Every structure is written in C-alpha cells, then in structure tokens.
C-alpha cells in the first residue's frame, strides 16, 4: 500500500499526470488560485482518466473551503491580508540535528521565499559531525548557531533569544515550506492577542506504507479553513488540535509573556515530542490566541521505514503524556484528565479494537500499541527529563 502525492489547481489546466503503476491511489491536494482548499485520497484510475469528471471530483473535495474561496475572490474581501503584500519582518528558525540532506532541502525551500526582510537562523542541536554546519554555512544569508546540549526545545529557546525580528517562525529540518509560507504565518499577527500561528503541513511524498499510515493516522494537517483557537472556546489541554511545531510562528516576546519552551520536552530528550503542544497550551491558558492558517503550506518528509514509523508513534505517545503531566502538575490544568480519558476511550481504544478484529481499513496494531506504550511511559519520561535538566 502506497500512494502518489499530487497537487491540482482548479483554475489551471489539469496537467498530464504520470502516475506510477505501483500506486493504486493518490493523495491529491486541491487548490483554488494557489490557495489549498481540500485534499482527497483518489483511486489512480480516476486520475488517469482525467477530464471533467476529475475536475468535479476535485471540486467536491474542495467543499466549503472552495466555495468560500470563490466567494471571497468574487467580492474582493478576505478576513486576512492577501499574500501579494509583504508581511512584517520575521525570523525563520530551523532547529536541526544530524540531518544535513534534510537541512539542505529545507534551506533551498526557504531561499525561494520572497524577500520581505526575513532572516534565517539555523540552530545545530549538538550534531555529532560538522556536516550540518557545512550545509548551513554554504547557503547565503543563513546565520548558524550551535547548541552543545541536545534538545529541540532548548534549540527553539535559543532561536527566540537570538532572533532579531518581532515574529519568529519555526520549521523542522525535514520540512520544505512553500514560498509564501512565511508571509501567510506572519500576517496573522496583526491581532495583538495572537501569540502563535500554525500552518498546513502536507506530506512531501507517500512512497512507502509507513509514510501513508503516518499521514492517515497522525496527519499534521488541520483542515483547509482558517481557525482561531482560544481558551474561551477550547481547553488548553486540547492544544494538539491547533497545529504542530513543524510549521509554527510565535511572537519573539512569547517567552516573556508565557514562559520559554520547556527544555525537558521534545526531540533530543527522553520525552521525544510534546514541546510545541505544551507551549501552545500555555499560550491558550494565558488567554492569547493561536491561528491556524492553511495558506501557510509546508511539506514534511515522513520517515519511510516501518521501524521509524513505530518509533514516531511511540514518541508521540510519550510526548503527549509528558506535556500533559507538566500541564496538570505544574500549570494546574485539571482539564487534562478529561482529555486524556476522552482520547483513550473515544479514539485509541476503538482503533485498537478495530485493528485486533481485523476490520478492513483499520490501522496496523503495532503502531497503535507503540502509541499506547508511549502514553504509559510519558509521565515517567517527563520527570526523568526534568531531573536531567537540573530542575
């Protein structure tokens, strides 16, 4: 089982499609004048046939987001600034560790952005060789910094401290932002109560089963309509819904307003993930807003191997419960308990039961087990990581 990842714009002629014979399906992103409005998994045969029926299928996949995009285009009104205008200056922070090839692709993608006066900062999180440094320094205009202790949140804090612009966007090294990604994120900060923004993250490719299951079970995408999150309407414990650190932007003074990233969380520590979600939760708890803007598009390279996928799901489980542990015990966010229970009984347990009963289309059980084992390990991992961090 694997798919092609395709991209169609309804306002452009449909291109000739060269689908690999081994792919029975394609993951198709639908756009309207460049703006992503929907996505669908389509049978390869439907795509090869092309023509008007494909266009109708794509329009159907666009749904409400497409209708609203058309309407806004017709009446010449948008709830946010259009992307043909330069955004306020921002810093882009790329935190990286021992992935020079990914970093090269990421930096090449960032070079395709229009020049709005942004700066690009690479923080090398204790890489074991100097390859990352060489790649970073080979790209003009990139500022390279090194952190001697590993930890993604430690590197993120370094970016916040070193940034010279009021808005700081973060991309992971295994992602490739589209040219207008930064503009789209930065425009959301016109509202003084917005402390963070996140974007739409699509898969870079889906060549292996592991990548496809990763996208199906734990997609970074949060839909195709702009959303504004705040604690008045959503508990901070549900901050995982707002987006992910692979594509996010914060105000530089976010650390002053709600505290820095928790360095006991996320990649490079025992907790493996959760640093972004925990920060989002604190932002919401402090009454600030987070905007999800689907026009801030980035592509993420999902790890191709099955073992890597299993490790990813285990890491998500650890990170989620590690972040919740901190929120419950140190931020007194009691709503965590309800959310953890709801996640288990409404999502994790039914998915596991379906998988064990071999219901067609159900998720592989080993990925679900990995996540559950991670959840169980999360609180312990957090306390050990805090102890190692000297707190």
């Amino acid at each position, binding site marked *: 089982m694997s798919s092609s990842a395709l991209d169609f714009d309804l306002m452009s002629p449909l291109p000739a499609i060269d689908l690999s014979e081994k792919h029975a399906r394609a993951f198709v992103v639908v756009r309207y004048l460049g703006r992503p409005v929907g996505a669908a998994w389509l049978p390869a045969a439907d795509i090869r046939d092309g023509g008007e029926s494909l266009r109708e299928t794509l329009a159907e996949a666009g749904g409400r987001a497409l*209708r609203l995009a058309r309407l806004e285009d*017709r*009446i010449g*009104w948008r*709830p946010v600034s259009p992307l043909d205008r330069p955004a306020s200056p921002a810093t882009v922070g790329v935190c990286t560790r021992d992935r020079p090839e990914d970093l090269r692709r990421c930096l090449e993608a960032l070079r395709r952005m229009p020049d709005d006066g942004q700066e690009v900062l690479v923080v090398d999180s204790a890489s074991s060789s100097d390859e990352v440094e060489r790649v970073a320094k080979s790209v003009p205009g990139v500022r390279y910094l090194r952190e001697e202790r590993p930890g993604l949140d430690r590197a993120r804090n370094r970016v916040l401290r070193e940034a010279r612009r009021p808005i700081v966007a973060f991309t992971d090294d295994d992602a490739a932002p589209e040219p207008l990604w930064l503009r789209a994120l930065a425009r959301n900060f016109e*509202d003084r109560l917005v402390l963070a923004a996140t974007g739409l993250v699509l898969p870079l490719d889906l060549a292996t089963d592991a990548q496809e299951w990763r996208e199906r079970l734990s997609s970074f995408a949060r839909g195709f309509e702009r959303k504004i999150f705040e604690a008045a309407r959503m508990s901070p414990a549900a901050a995982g819904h707002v987006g992910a650190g692979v594509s996010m932007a914060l105000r530089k003074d976010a650390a002053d307003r*709600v505290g820095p990233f928790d360095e006991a969380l996320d990649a490079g520590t025992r907790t493996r993930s959760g640093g972004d979600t925990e920060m989002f939760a604190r932002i919401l708890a*402090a009454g600030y807003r987070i905007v999800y803007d689907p026009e801030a598009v980035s592509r993420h390279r999902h790890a191709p191997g099955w073992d890597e996928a299993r490790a990813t799901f285990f890491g998500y489980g650890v990170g989620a419960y590690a972040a919740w542990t901190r929120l419950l015990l140190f931020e007194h966010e009691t*709503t965590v308990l309800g959310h953890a229970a709801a996640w288990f009984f409404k999502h994790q347990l039914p998915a596991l039961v379906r998988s064990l009963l071999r219901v067609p289309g159900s998720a592989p059980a080993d990925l679900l087990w990995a996540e559950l084992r991670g959840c169980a390990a999360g609180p312990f991992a957090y306390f050990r990581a805090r102890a190692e961090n000297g707190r």
Partner: protein
Amino acid sequence: MIAPCTRPEFLEVSVIVPTRNRARFLLRLLDALRAQTFPADRFEVLPVVNATEDDTMEQILRFDTPFALRPIETDAPGAASARNRGASEAQADLLLFLDDDVIPSPGLIEAHASAHDTAERFVGIGPYYPVHLRTVDFFRIATRNWWEDLFMEMGRPDHRFTYRDVLSGNLSMRADLFRALGGFARDFAACDGEDWELGVRVVRRGVPVRFLPEARAHHLEHETMTLERSFVRARREGRGDARISRRFPELEPALAPPWGKPWDLSRRRAPVLLARCAPRTCEAPARALARLLPLLEGMRMRRSWKCVYHFIRGYWRWRGYFEEMRAIRAERDSGTPSEETIVLEETTLLLDEGIEEALRRVDRERPSAVRIIHGGRAIGTISAVPGAEPLRGAHLRRILGGALADTLAANGEDGDWSR
C-alpha cells in the same frame, strides 16, 4: 481656582483630564505628557480635580512641566461634569480628553493634532491598550482581551462605528463641534456611559468617528479595575443604559430587558428577573456567588467561571438599570426631554447588477439596512443597527464575505454576480 492667562498665540490642543483621588495616576500621566513629540508650547493640560480627598492639587502645583498646566478644582460630581468644565476653560481649538489611568505614547498628541488638521469635523478615538501582564487570572485575561478586541475591531478599515465606540479615555474633537453637540450629558453623575450617550448624538448628527491608531496609549486598568469593581461598574453602566434608552427611543429595544416568556429562566433572563423582583434580597447571594469564582478558576473551569461571572454582572447591570428607571420616573423634570425617533432607511440591493455596482450604490445612498436580492430571491438582510453609522460599501463587502458568506457561496454557484 484656575490660573488666569491669556491665550498663547500658537496653542493648538487642550488636554482635559478628569481625576478624583488618584494623584499617583495623574502624575504618571503628566510625566508621559512631558515626553510628547508635539511642541510643548502648543498644548495645555487641564487636570479637572473633582471633590478630592487626597493631595492631588498640591502635587500638581509642585509638578514642573514644559507645557502650560492649568489645574481646575470642581465640586460637581461625575466625570462628565468635570470634562464639560475642562472644555469650558480650554483655550485651544482642539480638545483632547484623556482618562487619568492612561499613559500616552510620545506621539499621541501629534497624532490627534495632525488628524484634525483638516476642515472636516469628526470625533477621533485613539486606542489605549491594556498592559499585558504574565498571568492566567481569568478576570485579568477577560478584561485585557475585551479592550484589545475593541481596538482591533475599530482599527479595521471595514468597521462600522457605533455609539459604543465613542470612548472618552482617549478622544479628540474640535471645540466648536463639542459645543455644537452640547458636551457631555449633565445627568450622568451616578452613571457610567456618558461617553456612549455623547456617541449617540455624534452618530445621529452624522458626525464621522475616526480611529487614530498612532494616537496610542497604555491603559493601567489592571491597577484601577478589580473583579469587585467590575460589578460596581456594571451597576453604573446599567444606570447609564437606562438614561440612554429613555433619551433615544430608537435604542430602547436594544437596551431594554429581555422579558421573553414568563417561564423563560434562561441564563440571560434570570438576572433580569432577580434584579427586578428581588433586588435587595439577591444582593447577599450575588456576593456569595462571586466568592465561588476563585474556586472555579483554581479548577480551571473556564466556561463555568464565565457563566457565573456574567450572571453576577448581569444581575448588577439590571439592578442599576431598574434603579435608574425609577429615578427617572421620579424626577419632576426628567432631565433632557426625549429626542425624536429617527427613521432608519432600508435599501433593496439587486446583486444581479454586479457586486461593484451594489457597493457603489451603498456608498452613494448610505442606508441603515439592506435587503439583498439575487435572481429574484431575497438571499439576505442586513438589519438596521440603532446607534450605528449608516452603511458603507466596505461594511457591505465584509458582511457579504462574513455573516452572509455561506448563503451567498451556495447561491453564487448558479450565476456570476461578480461583475
């Protein structure tokens, strides 16, 4: 006692600051005014010191400023009277009203002055943003966000101004306009909302309201407003709303209590019934309920906190409203007589003529309400909003893209009305 002086030749702006027993705040404000980019010889500052119990006057007299500082003492109660008194003593053509708990940015006076450097008469509103503290206190967050949202909305180019946007904390207008409007209402001593009352008259006369983003200030509401005080303010605002609704008939439906059906005990209506039927009996329970708020906050029960807070606030607001209604009825001469009802015009827009033509028509006719027809069918209505400026094309564009978007998006599939 006001210091006699002849009007300096270059004087352009009179800054009027009503204050009462808040010397500490006033001195901070005066200190910020010393740092203005606007030339100090072109503006004067008139602190109007109201029935003071502290040493505000002595402190002002000891304060050294590069601008003319002319404190005025008054015994008349209420900020409205103090502002009127300041305006009557002002010597410049442009009046700038500031609250004593705002800290002006260095460019504030210059922004107001340059905006009014035109023949047009309008009311200028500068934002006074709350200070962002590092806190998870629900009341602080709610208050901060209310102010932020207010100014963010006003700053939008497609914002439709209403009387409730006229805020006296950072407000400017030409002195002749202020006089033509009749100044602030004199009967608001026991009420809040004298600026809103003025706002109704501003909108009724068709005077434009402009938001001046560069005339920014910081608002120290976190030092002057507490949870308890917010209930006191709610009561005073209720009183103000009663006065406004008695004076301006078109606003009465919007400000009147939602009576509904007798058996309707919804969250919105219950405070009305309690305030109306058992105002004194409910006072102790309301205070007891307020003591529940920290408990809900400690458990991070945001929705319950919000629900209880608005319930208590609603009780105090309606209590003030009914108290003032009784007072108005008891007045032999009930203040200013009620104004005449104004008729709000409605226009029918045919979107088949093309969206741009429809917008041009709205800009030309400035209706208060619009019925939208497309393909022979009514597909939406923009109702009249009492106390709001007439519609502009920009307002319509936003409503079409926002509130009516789903209806139009579904309707627009079968025809192109975008010409």
